[in-house]
């Protein structure tokens, strides 16, 4: 219990420290210090917290462990990157960014351990609010527009998720049960809850948390916010916040799976997932802005998660593995895209071409990260996407499997038309050279993430495999 509490309190302490440090130069160092401690605590919590069957508001289950490991690793990489990045952007005051990132880390830690749906909602809401000023980091007209869309659409989404939670709470009252919003108790109630209220709660929470995840058609804020936010914020949003939204969806899914007839939920999730992948694939073709491209790639992967929940069976394991794989891959791509953006002072592929010649390390990592993100072997995304694909076949959904294969290929080809010129093209001659240089801190974090992504793809360490298996078991329909 203690490490779990510390996971939430430590980043908050860090945030206060960051607020109090007056120097713009020294402040970013708080990030890696807190991040390393948080990562160490996460490992302790993951190894030593036993699976408890208690109905506590706060405890760490196997699903929480998967999410915790993923974003703690990602945050650690981002925090080291932040030092040199913020050095480069020394003209901007980074007080809000540094403390905001840490508050967000605390809220994300609360998200993974919260088993009370109200508390979970509050934590997810906090992550949304703290990210808003960070999307606005560049303080120009474009970032205002992005922040406005982000705030408005996500606030509406999160309000609808609250309505879903109220529906669920009311359904327990209608069923004449002891009112509760604790996950494990609701699972026990699920078969006795009135179908209408449970289905309505599910739909509203799917739409609400789906907005936060960026499922189509509620994804419209995503390309703008990811495109305008600094790369480091984009990495945390794609690999951290979007996953928190998915966790919210997982929790209601866990309840619905205990309700007896689960076909309705599977149909809705499958449809929603495929639709998101299709929309993302369409927009990935001929995308000239590489940060917006990554946003659509995130829509695609969120669609994959949702589809996997809808398919059930073997695909669930794929979804759990994909949480880690996608988080690491997104981290690599967003951090490197920040470098390329700085190197060319543009994120448009017409102006930002030939990274290989301008900044070879960034160029190489961008290319490898692209393969890592799109599910090429040997990276872990291959294993996870293949599990989801074979999950579809195993359940006898041949049509879904074929559609999925086509859409993923379209997305891969579409992205390659953007990535390849950015990596291999010729740098535009007329543009003035920026001061940007590849440095260790701008390269090493993404490289570490990429190596981890490859290692997990080739060889899953058995403790991690155990966690993934028990997380999958929590998602299955009880026999």
């Amino acid at each position, binding site marked *: 219990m203690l490490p779990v509490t510390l996971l939430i309190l430590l980043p908050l302490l860090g945030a206060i420290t960051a607020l109090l440090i007056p120097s713009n130069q020294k402040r970013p160092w708080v990030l890696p210090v807190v991040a390393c401690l948080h990562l160490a605590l996460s490992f302790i919590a993951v190894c030593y917290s036993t699976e408890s069957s208690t109905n506590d508001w706060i405890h760490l289950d196997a699903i929480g462990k998967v999410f915790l490991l993923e974003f703690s690793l990602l945050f650690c990489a981002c925090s080291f990157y932040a030092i040199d990045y913020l050095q480069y952007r020394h003209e901007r005051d980074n007080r809000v960014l540094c403390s905001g990132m840490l508050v967000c880390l605390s809220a994300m830690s609360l998200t993974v351990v919260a088993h009370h749906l109200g508390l979970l909602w509050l934590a997810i809401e906090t992550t949304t609010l703290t990210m808003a000023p960070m999307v606005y980091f560049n303080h120009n007209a474009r970032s205002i*527009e992005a922040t406005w869309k982000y705030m*408005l659409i996500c606030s509406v989404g999160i309000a609808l998720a609250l309505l879903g939670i109220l529906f669920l709470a009311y359904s327990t009252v209608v069923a004449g049960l002891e009112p509760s919003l604790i996950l494990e108790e609701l699972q026990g109630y699920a078969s006795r809850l009135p179908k209408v209220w449970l289905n309505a709660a599910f739909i509203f929470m799917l739409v609400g948390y789906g907005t936060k995840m960026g499922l189509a058609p509620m994804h419209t804020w995503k390309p703008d916010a990811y495109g305008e936010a600094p790369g480091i914020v984009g990495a945390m949003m794609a690999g951290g916040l979007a996953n928190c939204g998915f966790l919210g969806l997982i929790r209601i899914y866990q309840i619905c799976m205990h309700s007896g007839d689960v076909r309705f939920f599977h149909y809705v999730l499958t449809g929603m997932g495929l639709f998101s992948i299709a929309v993302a694939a369409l927009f990935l073709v001929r995308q000239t802005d590489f940060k917006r491209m990554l946003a659509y790639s995130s829509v695609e992967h969120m669609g994959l998660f949702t589809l996997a929940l809808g398919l059930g069976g073997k695909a669930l394991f794929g979804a759990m593995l994909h949480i880690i794989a996608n988080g690491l891959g997104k981290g690599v791509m967003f951090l490197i895209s920040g470098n390329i953006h700085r190197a060319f002072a543009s994120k448009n592929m017409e102006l930002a071409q030939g990274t290989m010649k301008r900044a070879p390390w960034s160029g190489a990592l961008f290319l490898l990260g692209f393969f890592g993100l799109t599910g090429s072997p040997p990276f872990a995304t291959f294993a996870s996407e293949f599990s989801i694909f074979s999950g579809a076949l195993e359940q006898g959904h041949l049509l879904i499997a074929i559609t999925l294969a086509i859409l993923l290929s379209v997305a891969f080809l579409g992205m390659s038309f953007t990535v390849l010129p950015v990596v291999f093209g010729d740098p535009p001659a007329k543009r003035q050279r920026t001061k940007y240089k590849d440095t260790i801190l701008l390269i090493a974090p993404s490289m570490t993430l990429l190596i981890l992504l490859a290692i997990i793809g080739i060889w899953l360490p058995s403790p991690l495999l155990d966690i993934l298996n028990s997380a999958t078991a929590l998602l299955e329909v009880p026999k």
Partner: protein
Amino acid sequence: MNFVADQFLAIVLLINIVILGTRRIDIAIRAISIQGIFIGLVPILMHNFSYHLLAMTLLVLAVKAIFIPWLLLRATRKVHFTEDVRPLFGYSGNIIACALTTVLAFAIATHLPLTTAHQGLLIVPVSLATILAGAINLGTRRKAIDQVVGYLLLENGIFLFGLLLTETMPLMVEAGALLDLIAGIFVMGIIINHINREFSSIDTSHMTALREPE
């Protein structure tokens, strides 16, 4: 006392129509403030008196009827609304849509299973109708501040539904709902101020820099 509560809820419905149909933002803000008063008073009419209930009522009134409308009115005074931006389907279109969704809300509410204590109350249909009105306002209006009013309508509808649970839901969730409202509007307000500085007006239809190329 439920009779009085139902009268209040009917007024809430009328205010929805006022907000959707008006072209003046200051009227919309005052209307949402009055709606806040009526919504805030409903719980004390429905339940037996307790100090917890009184405290909650006062808090809700302070936030919904005074603080947030004041914040919004302040924002409008800083910004000069010279041009009139028509909603997507016009003002009458909004009113018709509001009427239709209200009918729809009543139709849906009759089919929902409720506890015996809540049957025959207007809370569920009015809450659904207000949520839908908020959705219409969000979808059809283009000025940033109008969209905030739409968001508030949505929140009011959700709060009304939450009233079914005042006796059973833990206090923390209620507090969370209110906190969210304050924080959300607060951040939105700050952003509106910046929007004003960067653009000459706060019409979000001017925000077209971020689009997919044709």
